[in-house]
């Protein structure tokens, strides 16, 4: 973005500016408050929450809720904490992100540099898949995963996430490769370079930013997914979001709000970290989600 474009021609007076800052700060408070409350109350003993004020800082700081949420909280039938589910999520997210990004890169390459008849139509079909309500595939998917012996397993979930993430990753790489000079590809072809050699030597070295965008998008989406996890997973494969929901909704015993909050932060931490480290790319991915690159 050039320096000039951040410049606005609109001039504002002093009172208006004060009002602007006031409104912006109020909204900043609105966005920060729920998360701040989670953090504050996750380091409080339970009695201070039920008997005291949610907005108050803890009088006794304690990290027990965190330890409990991670290692010993009752989730489902076992007092395992969120730990095993955290690893379930990792085991699901890593291969799903890798496979869908690789396939997306190859698809984008084919659809921009090796165009053929009906390629736009094919792309349209892939793109539409991003937007279907997943309810329409739940029943057949449950059936197929059962038939393939993948029901309730991590590989089953990986398959599901690869399939329904492909449209997005293809979109990202297609938009990105669209502006890569096709003459370079043609020149390499004349020099006798084949399909994969051109991809490997020419396209891939310049694909860094879009790979980051695609990985972040897929990571965030798959980590945060709840519907597929709730529908197709069992104990050995249930992701973090499903476990968190089980923890919070569990109707037995005392509601340990502090443990719920600690668990919620644990579930949010990976995507938040990604957002803090690579927020710029995160925004780009969101924008590209609105189809235009």
């Amino acid at each position: 973005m050039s320096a000039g474009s951040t410049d606005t021609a609109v001039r504002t007076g002093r009172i208006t500016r004060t009002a602007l800052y006031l409104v912006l700060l109020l909204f900043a408070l609105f966005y920060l408050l729920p998360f701040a409350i989670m953090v504050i109350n996750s380091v409080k003993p339970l009695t201070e929450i039920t008997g005291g004020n949610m907005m108050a800082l803890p009088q006794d700081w304690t990290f027990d809720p965190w330890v409990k949420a991670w290692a010993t909280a009752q989730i489902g039938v076992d007092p395992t904490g969120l730990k095993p589910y955290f690893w379930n999520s990792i085991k699901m997210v890593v291969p799903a992100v890798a496979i869908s990004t690789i396939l997306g890169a190859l698809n984008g390459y084919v659809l921009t540099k090796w165009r053929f008849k009906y390629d736009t139509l094919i792309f349209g079909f892939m793109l539409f898949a991003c937007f279907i309500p997943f309810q329409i595939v739940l029943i057949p998917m449950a059936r197929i995963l059962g038939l393939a012996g993948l029901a309730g397993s991590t590989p089953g979930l990986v398959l599901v996430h690869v399939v329904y993430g492909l449209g997005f990753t293809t979109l990202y790489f297609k938009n990105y490769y669209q502006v890569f000079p096709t003459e370079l590809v043609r020149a390499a072809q004349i020099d006798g370079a084949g399909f994969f050699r051109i991809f490997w030597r020419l396209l891939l070295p310049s694909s860094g930013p879009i790979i980051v965008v695609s990985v972040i998008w897929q990571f965030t989406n798959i980590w945060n997914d709840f519907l597929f996890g709730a529908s197709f997973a069992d104990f050995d494969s249930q992701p973090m979001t499903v476990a968190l929901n089980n923890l919070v909704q569990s109707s037995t015993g005392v509601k340990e709000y502090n443990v719920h909050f600690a668990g919620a932060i644990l579930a949010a931490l990976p995507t938040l970290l990604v957002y803090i480290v690579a927020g710029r790319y995160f925004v780009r991915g969101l924008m590209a989600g609105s189809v235009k690159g």
Partner: protein
Amino acid sequence: MATPAADADFKTKLQTWVPKLVLSPSLALMLVFVYGFILFSVYLSFTDSRILPSYGWVGFENYDKLFRLRHWDIAVNNLIVFAALYIIICSVIGLMLAIFLDQKIRGESVLRPIFLYPMALSFIVTGTAWKWFLDPGIGLEHTMHLWGWESFHFDWIKNRDYAIYTVVLAAVWQSSGFVMAMFLAGLRGIDNEMLKAAQMDGATNFQLYHRIIIPQLRPAFLSAFVILSHLAIKSYDLVVALTGGGPGRATEVPATFMYSYTFTRNQMGIGASSSVIMLMTIVAIMVPYLYSELREKN
């Protein structure tokens, strides 16, 4: 002489096939898992499937039953209320924040990520945070009472008539920053010369925005509308985490309806028909949009 030519011929032939071969696994996955599955669900919606798929044809009976169900009625009405408020409020807040941030605000680089971070969270996390924050027993109401405002009353999340608005509140919290980012990108793309010219002609700030700037944000409005409506129709996680569809059925939406009819009430035929209705709603919004986007590019 002949052999190298044949060889080259083979090579070019291979070169035309390799790209298609590379694309074919993805295409096959899509055909089966997206379009095949859609057809299968549509087919199931015309069968007497209960706990498992079964193939007795019953025509439109499931749709007939679906539209007579009070439960579905509530879910659809809730979705209409939720989607309308969610889209409107997100757009208003998003546009306002974008315009405000665009006034050479000091600290923009701090504020922008604060507005946007909720989008990185899972709806389950958002739901958990708001569930307890809005709980009258321990959350906001309780806090206000402790601060001495005894008459403060805010129990929407437990109130049948108002619970759906708490879903709107949490959803707006999650997505409005994203709409802000889209509008801000749009604002930054507007040509300043035109604005300066209009200012020379004596246009006020309000006129600048009303007449020149906001009309130019049309593509951003359209994208925001499409993405938000699509998120609204698909919303399942947030409702599950925040209210579980309750109190009673007060916050049921089609997504939760489909899930409970299919997997817990064993009315798969009706569940499938509800998912078909959801798909058709999305198609009605997405297909014209995608079509115009793709046409524009070629």
